[in-house]
């Protein structure tokens, strides 16, 4: 494929899309599929065929539209109008009604009868949508992830074409540096710096890896990006590979994400067929190809060196750094590992410029961040908000506030490596630095909201149980420290703890933070420590629960001591 063919194909597809009177975007992501999205699409197609409207209406299976708690979602786009209509919680029956009572009459020049359908309409001007800025998720919900031309029609591979034909690797690095983009996997290492190290590293066969080993409980940003817009990630990888001089790309995706794997696989195949992957891409001298490696689901394999070990067929355990993977990584080659979301930003930055990207966010945290917003909220789902937005806006405007009516108590960011942030700190802007100051971390984007009914002690235990289970067992502080912390926490939960146990928790936690080899162990105590920091009284209630065995505890939580 030549660069101009991208434009030709994009225009051809755009014309095709415009020829439809209606386009029905149906969320076809794992979440909505589990609530029946496939049979809904079948029903839509059946009804359209019955109405003889199949050629006038396109049913577009798409990636995630964001408001997962109200799925399955269908977005109806009518040719010639800019106002789309979104239908929520669609069922097979309401889908049929949608065609019969809403689409068909309009096709025949009539007026739609909303009737019962009215209650399924979700206004698109609610804060959940309006407060979001979509860069990474720009295509999610609007393209068929399995169609390359859909991606092309939305400026797909334009950035890659620009980079390959008119930019030098240094210019690419400069653009990314200007954007201020930092690694979205959680640590926030500047992407341009990482690429620069790999670029300067000596090696014949540099490798770029897309880290799709998302594992935080409740987090599914990367899965959705891969399911919704796989070509954007491939394009980001290709640009990164060009910047650092790599010719090989590897998607490391956990095997529990079959749909993401399937779509990335198809995207790679399609891109290869179109000459967007392979040798002499777009008529340039640049060669680049991708392959997929599956992770077996160990949380620790998201850590770069463990990920590398896993691909090499070894036990998935981290190794000390240096040497850093960018110098000596997979198969001893310079290896750059970027998170899915990081890579999904790249093409947009190249098209719109680093300065545009840097105009969003705070001083040190630029652009947007995708969060998986879950917990005791009205609106749960996948959101993308500009850095610098306060936690309050995210929780109360985007998230719609408490879903239960019980006041919101805290949010957990950064998953099991992060910490609890109490409601009194909700005016803190979202940035790597601000969250760290509060004793939590940005993490990869899990954001779990808790209300007053949730017990902090139980939440801390939940996360700790996760990290203890996921510890690779290589180093003593994490391996044994985590388990002992868990036992100490259980002792307190059961009303058998004492002040000495709290002291011991702090002591073991310090050893884990300072002595663990990788981030998993270093951050595993965070949920407990932030719990102690902000909600000490909840621990004290359990400590003072002397008659726990009789069920006399007044702490108000459904704790193990009450079971006795």
């Amino acid at each position: 494929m030549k660069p101009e063919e991208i434009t030709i194909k994009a225009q051809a597809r755009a014309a095709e899309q415009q020829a439809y009177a209606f386009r029905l975007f149906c969320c076809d992501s794992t979440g909505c599929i589990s609530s029946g999205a496939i049979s809904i699409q079948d029903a839509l197609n059946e009804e359209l065929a019955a109405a003889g409207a199949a050629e006038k209406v396109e049913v577009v299976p798409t990636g995630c539209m964001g408001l997962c708690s109200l799925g399955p979602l269908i977005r109806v786009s009518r040719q010639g109008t800019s106002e789309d209509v979104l239908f929520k919680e669609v069922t097979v029956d309401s889908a049929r009604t949608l065609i019969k009572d809403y689409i068909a009459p309009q096709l025949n020049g009539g007026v739609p009868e909303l009737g019962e359908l009215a209650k399924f309409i979700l206004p698109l001007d609610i804060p959940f949508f309006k407060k979001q800025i979509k860069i990474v998720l720009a295509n999610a919900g609007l393209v068929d992830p399995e169609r390359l031309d859909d991606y092309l029609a939305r400026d797909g591979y334009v950035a890659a074409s620009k980079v390959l034909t008119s930019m030098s690797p240094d210019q690419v690095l400069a653009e990314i540096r200007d954007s201020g983009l930092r690694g979205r996997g959680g640590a926030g290492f500047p992407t341009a710096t990482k690429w620069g190290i790999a670029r300067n590293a000596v090696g014949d066969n540099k490798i770029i890896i897309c880290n799709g080993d998302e594992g935080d409980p409740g987090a599914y940003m990367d899965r959705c990006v891969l399911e919704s817009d796989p070509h954007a990630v491939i394009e980001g990888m290709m640009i990164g590979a060009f910047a650092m001089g790599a010719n090989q790309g590897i998607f490391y995706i956990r095997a529990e994400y079959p749909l993401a794997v399937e779509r990335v696989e198809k995207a790679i195949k399609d891109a290869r067929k179109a000459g967007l992957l392979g040798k002499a891409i777009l008529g340039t001298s640049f060669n680049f190809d991708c392959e997929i490696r599956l992770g077996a689901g160990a949380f620790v394999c998201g850590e770069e060196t463990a990920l590398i070990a896993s691909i090499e067929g070894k036990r998935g355990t981290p190794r000390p750094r240096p040497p850093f993977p960018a110098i000596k990584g997979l198969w001893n080659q310079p290896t750059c590992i970027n998170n899915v979301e990081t890579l999904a930003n790249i093409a947009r930055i190249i098209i719109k410029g680093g300065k545009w990207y840097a105009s969003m966010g705070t001083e040190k945290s630029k652009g947007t961040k995708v969060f998986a917003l879950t917990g005791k909220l009205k609106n749960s789902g996948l959101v993308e908000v500009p850095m610098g937005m306060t936690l309050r806006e995210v929780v109360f405007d985007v998230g719609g506030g408490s879903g239960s009516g019980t006041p919101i108590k805290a949010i957990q960011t950064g998953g099991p490596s992060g910490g609890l942030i109490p409601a009194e700190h909700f005016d803190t802007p979202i940035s790597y630095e601000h969250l760290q100051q509060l004793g939590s971390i940005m993490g990869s984007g899990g954001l779990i909201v808790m209300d007053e009914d949730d017990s902090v002690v139980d939440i801390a235990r939940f996360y700790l149980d996760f990290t203890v289970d996921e510890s690779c067992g290589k180093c003593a502080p994490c391996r044994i420290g985590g388990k002992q912390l868990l036992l100490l926490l259980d002792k307190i939960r059961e009303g058998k703890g004492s002040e000495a146990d709290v002291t011991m928790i702090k002591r073991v936690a310090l050893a884990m933070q300072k002595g663990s080899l990788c981030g998993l162990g270093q951050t595993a105590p965070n949920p407990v420590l932030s719990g102690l920091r902000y909600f000490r009284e909840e621990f004290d209630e359990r400590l003072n629960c002397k008659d726990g065995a009789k069920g006399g505890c007044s702490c108000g939580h459904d704790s193990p001591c009450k079971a006795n």
Partner: protein
Amino acid sequence: MITATINGNVVEIPEGTSILDAAKRLAIKIPVLCKHPDLDHTAACGICVVRNKSNGRMLRACCTPVEAGMDLLTHDPEIVGVRRTILELMMSKHPNECLTCGRSGDCELQTLCQDFGIRREELPNITPDLPKDCSTGTIELDPRKCISCGRCVQVCQDKQNVWALSFLDRGIDTRIATAGDIPLNESPCVSCGQCSAHCPTGAIVEHDESGIVWDKLQDPDAICVVQIAPAVRVAIGEAFGFAPGANLTGKTYAALRQMGFKYVFDTNFGADLTILEEASEFVERFANGKGELPLITSCCPAWVDFMEKYHSDMIGHFSSCKSPHEMVGALAKTYFCERNNLDPKKVFMVSIMPCTAKKMEIKRNEDMASSGMQDVDVSLTTRELARMIKQAGIDFAWIPESQPDHLLGAYSGAGTIFGATGGVMEAALRTAVHMVTGEKLGKVEFEATRGLKGIKEATLNVAGHEVRIAIAHGLGNVEMVVNKVREAKAKGEPLPYHFIEVMACPGGCVGGGGQPYGVTDEVRLARAKGLYSEDTAGVWRNSHENPYIQELYRTYLDKPLSEKSHHLLHTHYKVRPTYQR
């Protein structure tokens, strides 16, 4: 060279030096449990944390290279506190069985706990109830005592290339085990014991058979005889405060006598005998074209086992000679008994070896019973002997030296250097030259055979012939050598070597898996030096000069490779599956 500051002192070090090694230069001792000087860092324990003063962060000294200008602090209350907590965590998943542990008094974990003054168990003990693996009869694996430092796995996989041990499960359930969790004796384990030599705790120890020996020493009907291997004499002293390499042959004989052994022999005699047989084999193959070249040495049982499991296509190249202690065992129950009118059935032969694999070798196949009964009844390691000497109340430092018993006690310098890597080769070459030329060697040393380089290759002039040799020690070094042979054979090219010596343990037997703990290259070199000094100081430098060897052939065996020699001193090999099921 770069400079950095540690605890306020400036140190100049080559780039790439770890913080641990840099601190050593300033006489600062940073505690470690997982890092062993022989091995790459595994970064598993976390005890070696130090502080980078510029950002306050803690770094692991074992695996972090010093960067130019670094300002480091190795000890402050918080650092020491973290180390103590990590130790307490380890102790919370370690059985509190120090008093009955094989490593008590010589355990790195125990020592650190003492250093850190750990007096209470504040955390609940969560040691899992895992069974011991005693299946090999050579080493015993107690996964409960394992602190998952990874040394054994690294030594077994990377250094020895055996791949018997690995980590199984994850998180708190992580444990050392064989692949597939099968018993060790069904795994590729060759019993070299390097895992036990590198284990910081009592998780892997030798199978202690001293009890059997004590029982026999009390048995009025038993005639207990003993022999000590070359490498034992220069290492046993370490258990009694002597420096590595101190040659304590006479004291060891004396201690054995005091313990009740009726006759004390020396495996070095067997080494001399091995040389006569093996050098003859070499001359047969090299000069007379009878048999395959290169000839490969066979005195290391772990190597023999490894070869049978991994390189069985080399069987034709193997020397058929038994190892020296087996030769002494066979002769003790035949030649010696006949000459002294003793009932061989009453003779109980104990060999003191630097080796755990010898425990397996004594029952290797039916050739190990060439006297009509098992030739060597029990094989003890140096470590077991040291404990027995202590149990016997013998003040090893002061005990007067003794002499070995004839007919199987006298030895040449060539016999004694068997204990160091390259020693067998050197000893064999000395005698081979004599066999070919009939002349006495002017200079007996073959320096190319000495030292700790993993693979030593040389082309030597032996009586006017070009002889290409290779010496590998540490099983991980074998592959390259045998592959060269395979390649040349496949291509029909000239053989890369005529004679190959292999010892399973790094440094040869001085670094054996049954030697006193704490082995490093420094210790290996010191022990080897002790053997080479004895060689230099000896009356006989060549095995064939040993008059007792001459007498043995004259009166009993006839000549090397005779029918009787073959019956008593030689063995055969078979292909063994790497996994037994």
